[in-house]
């Protein structure tokens, strides 16, 4: 697996506990509209992702991230 594939796999794994509707998640899945996460769920999830990848995802950056794919890309840049 490439680095990006590994990050994507890990991200999917971390989404699952918050995927209350049990929807099928892909790169195009949107956090707000498709997963229907409210702001508190987002904060919880982001805290977990930050600790897993040892990065900071500020609220300013979160505002630019709508989909799972965009998060994986952002994580790739933050780790680089």
């Amino acid at each position, binding site marked *: 697996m490439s680095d990006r594939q590994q990050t994507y796999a890990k991200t999917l794994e971390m989404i699952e506990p918050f995927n209350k509707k049990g929807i099928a998640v892909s790169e195009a899945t949107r956090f707000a509209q498709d997963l229907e996460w409210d702001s*508190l769920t987002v*904060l919880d999830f982001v*805290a977990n992702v930050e*600790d897993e990848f*040892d990065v*900071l995802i500020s*609220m*300013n950056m979160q505002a630019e991230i709508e989909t799972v794919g965009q998060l994986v890309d952002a994580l790739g840049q933050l780790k680089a």
Partner: protein
Amino acid sequence: MIDLFSKFDPVIALRESLLDSGQTDPFNLVMEKVESPTVAICNGKRTILLGTYNYMGMTFDPDVIAAGKQALDEFGSGTTGSRVLNGTYVGHRACEEALKDFYALDHAMVFSTGYQANLGVISTLAGKEDYIVLDIDSHASIYDGCALGNAQIVPFRHNDIDALEKRLKRIPEGAGKLVVLEGVYSMLGDIAPLKEMVAVAKANGAMVLVDEAHSMGFIGEHGRGVAEAQGIIDDVDFIIGTFSKSVGTVGGFCVSNHPKFEILRLVCRPYVFTASLPPSVVATAATSIRKLMHSADKRAHLWENSKRLHAGLRQLGFTLGTDEPQSAIIAVIMPDLETGAAMWGALLNEGLYVNLARPPATPANMTLLRCSLCALHSEEQVGEILGMFAAAGRATGCID
């Protein structure tokens, strides 16, 4: 034309469904008369006030009222001007002197509200390349201060020292850092482990701002707040506070020992571009602050009230926000908004006013009945309050 109000349709629907069930609107109560800091007339009925943040009961203090009346006579009803133009009277300076004496700090700056104090100080201190690290449960005024500025905003899990430290260590080398904490968190009434958190912030080169809105006048030997109670007030760079709780009027402030602090008066937009407080308000505030310096007996009675209400509610079978009373706020956790609203209405029928708090203001989507005690609640009143909770709780099925 797109109706710009369409985005509020879900809130309108939620509100209508609540009112259609015959519920009194919890967010539209009118106080027809106010007899004292602890009693008002609502819907023609004598009502004990248990949700006012009037912790030290200063609103009807005779010295406070006399100072306000005198200032109204001598200086008029308003300043009609900004603090940096025609809006600084001797009363505003006297109020800032009272704050400096109260906190034993070098600088004090009075804003028109506590909300504006957070808005102004946070947005001005942290610039584009800087980082603000804040507790996830921070008050709306702190989040709005972050939104008004240009800094990178990094929240961490509520009261989690380890989560704060990890985030501070991940901030790039050379960036400015501001850690924003509260002494008492107003939703659940829990306090922050400030001693440990401030030590972590300092070890990682951050400045620290603590909002002590809900602890001023009550917590700490001199009523300076949780930072005083935990012995680290000298390590806090900025304390934010309000006049609309223990002080008993309206207004906000920031106090600090930073040598360059006074420049904020020229660069802080929510300070500059608004009218200053009316002379009567700063006169009541200054008088109240000076009296709060010598209110150890009232502080002790308020602690007694808080402990008794906490123990009594728990004995009745209610679920509370904290295991032990940590402040003058006792939060009763309700299973859902419908039950919370029904219980709120039943308490009002009994003659008791508390705050109904609901998402998004609450952590973890909780519905809370938030009780805030006053140093002037008598022992008898606390007994009455517990009786009303027992009756309303049984009537609504919240307790057995």
